[in-house]
């Protein structure tokens, strides 16, 4: 083993410490947590998880989050695909300006937009629906998806398009049967990043929902204030929010780094 590997090992240990503490806490009773310091759970309990999986207000938080995140990923990729194709293949009036304008939407602080978003989605009657959160997250996910997909599409030679047209393919048929399969890694990476940013964003999601589409984060803050400070329960809920991301990242592990490397700028 080489000496330099110590650096990533120490770094990973540093990353895992707070996560370990969260997971360890989720297996403790609230009494044990508050009574003092212990490195490992002394009275190992699954009670916290039982509460979450049996109480609808808890587990619906997860279901709601997963619904709007999936909706957002599908919408973002669906509209970003043709746009990225246009950016990678054509030059048209204002294309560069448009591309930069899209990127600027990642720069607007979500805190700035919280109140106007609430008013906008209330006035169109979408407040407290999954689709409202999915659409709102498009603000920062579509630009990112266009950016990543454009990078992958630029890597596909233009001759592929031309050959397909000579062979008599119509544009939609070419796009779906030939072009898409050749950039499927890119679609995977873009979908991963859309999923990730929609999953971790909580300010807009909380602002745009009340009961029916409430995300897991809002459930967590509510519990923290109403039932005193149920640390064990909170830790268990937090632990469960890590799992979907971990599953998704496992599937794209070989592409994550590549996704941004091919991007533009």
């Amino acid at each position, binding site marked *: 083993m080489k000496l*330099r*590997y*110590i650096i*990533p090992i120490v*770094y*990973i240990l540093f*990353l895992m*410490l*707070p*996560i370990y*503490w*969260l997971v360890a*806490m989720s297996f403790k009773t609230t009494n044990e947590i*508050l009574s*003092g*310091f212990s490195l490992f759970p002394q009275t190992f309990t699954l009670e916290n998880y039982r509460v979450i999986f049996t109480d609808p207000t808890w587990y619906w938080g997860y279901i709601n989050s997963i619904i709007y995140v999936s909706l957002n990923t599908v919408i973002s990729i669906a509209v970003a695909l*043709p*746009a990225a*194709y*246009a950016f990678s*293949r*054509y*030059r*048209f*009036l204002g294309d560069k300006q*448009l591309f930069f304008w899209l*990127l600027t*939407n990642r*720069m*607007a*602080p979500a805190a*700035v*937009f919280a*109140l*106007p978003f609430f008013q*906008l989605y209330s006035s169109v009657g979408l407040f407290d629906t999954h689709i409202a959160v999915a*659409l709102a997250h*498009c*603000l920062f996910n*579509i*630009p990112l998806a266009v950016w990543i997909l454009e990078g992958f599409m630029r890597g596909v030679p233009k001759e592929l398009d031309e050959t397909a047209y000579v062979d008599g393919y119509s544009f939609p048929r070419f796009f779906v049967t030939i072009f898409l399969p050749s950039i499927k890694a890119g679609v995977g990476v873009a979908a991963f990043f859309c999923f990730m940013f929609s*999953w*971790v964003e909580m*300010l807009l999601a909380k602002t745009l929902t009340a009961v029916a589409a409430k995300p897991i*984060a809002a459930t*967590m803050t509510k519990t923290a204030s109403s039932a005193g400070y149920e640390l064990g329960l*909170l*830790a268990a809920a*937090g632990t469960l*929010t*890590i799992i979907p*991301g*971990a599953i998704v*990242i496992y599937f794209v*592990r070989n592409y*994550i*780094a590549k996704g*941004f*490397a091919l991007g533009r*700028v």
Partner: protein
Amino acid sequence: MKTVNQKGWFFVLPVLVLVAFNALIPMMTVVNYSVQETFGDNVFFWEGLGWFEQLLNSERFYAALGRQFMFTGIILAIEVPLGIIIALSMPRQGFWVPVCLVLMALPMLIPWNVVGAMWNIFTLPDIGLLGYLMNTTLGINYDMTQDPVAAWVTIVTMDVWHWTSLVVLLSYAGIVSIPDAYYQAAKIDGASNWAVFRYIQLPKMKTVLTIAILLRFMDSFNIYTEPFVLTGGGPGNSTTLLSIDLVKIALGQFDLGPAAAMSLIYFAITLLVSWVFYTVMTKDDAQ
């Protein structure tokens, strides 16, 4: 070579409509608020540029802006070099590569309020792992609810923990794209490790590093949820970053006019810095 084809607009149209709906309408609402005064009940009075004037003369705004720049500066100064060093020392192939990548990416996939809450319980003086180690084992008096320095160290450490992996992943992507022949040539020439880094690896990482710094700048400058959950801006106002202050004014005091004016100035600063950076970096590429 790309062909000139105005048909491109039809392909871009769905994106344009969706993003414009989400960006322009709320933005106009903010602009609208920024020039008016309200006492509730949806009654508004014309205020002109008064809020902007008031804001640009207020010490509170400059203090928050200063803290914001300090935070962004510190985390960039730590995360970028640290990320590059870690990426350079990672294995290039084999079983451990995906393991490293998955473990490193994990913090980025945790919802932001959970990150804040998690660091909060991690640093509690008597029962948190870090708080306990510092206070009891090492005997250093560490309590971020009392001590501004401890609070700053904690939010910076949290951000380093949360986002250094982004720099690592991107730099790593740049490094593995370098063909082996480059290293062999360097070895034949007897180049030192530093020369290999300076003339081979760094230039190859430039594009991805640009993206990393740009993303880190934008996201850290707009950071809200994590420090708010962790410290709530305290003790006192010592960790009240710009966005925390903004939300205090907008939702805490319900001063929509000043908050809107502040939002616009805030957005303009982010936009300006990013634009300068984007232009400088892409101009270099064209040469």
